[in-house]
């Protein structure tokens, strides 16, 4: 099963490598990873999406906890939480599809952040399902480039699953 794991880590050099090394060294897969500073610049937050059975996920969280630079590990999947990802999609639609692209962007509350004579770049934010849905719909119109941030997640206050 897929899990979204949130980590607070010391913002030091080498930390990312310790974490990715833990995954590669033990044969676990990282499906997505995002990192950023927190309000406290000495601490970074990471969101890792990985998958495995219960035993593997237990090992992953324990092994992450064991790393000296990891301050806190939360398996978001066990909590009620909100997940978001942002994607940038560059489409090069045919003349007759242009209106449809703009309509889709609007339906998904995307924004056109750049356009050229032949392309639109659309920014969409949402959970996995929403992102997947718009990508599916835009595919036939000709996606030229696709960028994604990786998932971030935050727990809902005080609610346990």
């Amino acid at each position, binding site marked *: 099963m897929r899990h979204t794991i949130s980590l607070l*880590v*010391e913002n030091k*050099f*080498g930390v990312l*490598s*310790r974490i990715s*090394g833990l995954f590669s*060294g033990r044969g676990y897969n990282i499906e997505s990873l995002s990192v950023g500073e927190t309000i406290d610049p000495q601490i970074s937050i990471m969101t890792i999406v990985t998958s495995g059975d219960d*035993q593997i996920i*237990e*090992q992953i969280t*324990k*092994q992450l*906890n*064991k790393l*000296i*630079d*990891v*301050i806190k590990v939360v398996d978001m999947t066990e909590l009620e939480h909100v997940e978001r990802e942002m994607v940038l999609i560059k489409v090069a639609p045919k003349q007759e599809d242009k209106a449809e692209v703009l309509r889709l962007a609007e339906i998904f509350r995307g924004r056109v952040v750049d356009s050229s004579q032949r392309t639109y770049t659309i920014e969409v934010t949402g959970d996995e399902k929403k992102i997947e849905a718009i990508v599916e719909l835009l595919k036939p119109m000709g996606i030229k480039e696709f960028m994604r941030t990786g998932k971030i997640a935050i727990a809902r206050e005080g609610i346990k699953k």
Partner: protein
Amino acid sequence: MKISGAEIFIESLKKEGVKHIFGYPGGVVLNIFDRLYDNKDIQLILTRHEQGAVHAADGYARSTGKPGVALVTSGPGATNTVTGIANASMDSIPLVVFSGQVPTMLIGNDAFQEADIVGISRPCTKYNYLAKDVRDLSRIVREAFYIAMSGRPGPVLIDLPKDVTASKTEFTWPEIKIRSYNPTYEGNKWMITQAAHLIAKSKKVVILAGGGVILSGGSKELKELAEYTDIPVTMTLMGLGGFPGTHELSLGMPGMHGTYYANKAIQESDLLIAIGMRFDDRVTGKIDAFAPHAKIIHIDIDPTSIRKNVRVDIPIVGDVKRVLTVLNKVLKEEVKEQWNEVRKAWLKQIDAWRKERPLTYTYSNEVIKPQFVVEKIHELTKGDAIIATEVGQNQMWTAQFYKFDKPRTLLTSGGLGTMGYGFPAAIGAQLAHPNKLVIDIAGDGSIQMNIQELATAVINKLPVKVAILNNRYLGMVRQWQELFFSERYSHTKLDESVPDFVKIAEAYGAVGLRATKPGEVEPVLKEAFKTKRTVFMDFVVDWKEKVFPMVPPGAPIDQMLFEKPEEKAEKKLKAVK
């Protein structure tokens, strides 16, 4: 007053109580070596290879419980330490390894003798540092020792750029607090109580004791637990000495080359109490057939060891000594059983297995059996020695036939299985215990992997004894080829390439002795133990001898071979005739 990074290095080691370090010089560590030149507090032992330095520091640590310290140069000096560091990491041995590094402004430039040792050693250290600023140095050293020694111990590496050892600052010794590192020492009281009740409810109980018993200093508490509840104890390779091998409740070692009765007891048990061990595949054999009827209580300081490869019913994260102290108390105050009544049938059953298949070998008058040498060493030392081993058959025969009664008397490479470990480790242990008998039980293959350390032993007047079980083969690999590869001895026959160990010893200024007949074994050992010099003993042993019992790879641990299947068939045939 401002002092240099090199001086801070020395002041910090003094604060940590370090007296000995093992090392090898080179360009970027010259500042430090210069400060060590006339230093009275810290003695550097020059080994003849950086791998030797790290293993020596490891032997020093294993035999004393104090952290071992090594100092090497950048590039090749640093990469030469990797095997030693990985070895210590697998066996949870506290080391602090200092590697020199090119000046900070050259890092990343492929400078002369630059290696990214922080990157290289990341997966095999507990933690590592690049000390980029001299003002951080004393704090880093203090943290490194703390991390190496606390929680589940392990090696820590500090990379020291040359300019950092030269630049100056005030020396401070700051209190350290690592917010993200808080090992759990106290076991959960509720879990411990559950464990006590489960112990009381179960009949066929076995204790599996590992290296964690020794690391935590919990041998006394383990003995108390076993004796009070009448539970037999089997010790993993790393756990040997954690419980007395001569005790009537001792089952010896379990697993691939363990005793039949230990393996039988595990397989038939209804409760396993695993203490400071991690269910290595050499212990469990075929994992899904391991201890099929048993509930498992697992006590370990490292949460990742628990439920890593076997299911666990009662996990207890904590320091072995502290957890056992509480467990013993709960058992005595809250549970109270007529233990010897409860355990009678079980111990009787185990005794029957012990009689059915004792640990044994066939003695010969013609040729020296390697097991005989190990037995003689045990007999003559009365178990009062520090024994190191190399890796292979020599290691397994030592584990089987030398009964370790005290913790920290066996130095062996358990997790990594590093040939070449034993001799330098013995040197480190001898330095820490000048008046003890320290013996490396070796193979003719392994001893050649760090044989250069003869110079270290001789020049430092360290009277280490090396007993080479010389079978002219890479014996353990040959054994597998004999049993599983139709006797095709691909690249395991050393034969005439085996050097004259007596002459080698003499060339280095050590004593060389040889025994070729069983009757010569005892006199050679006695002579070696008498002298105050470094001794190599060349025991020319039966090359055909194999380590039995043996669980074939992938089999459940109670399906053991006691001899080669064909030899068994031949014997039967003869009996019929």
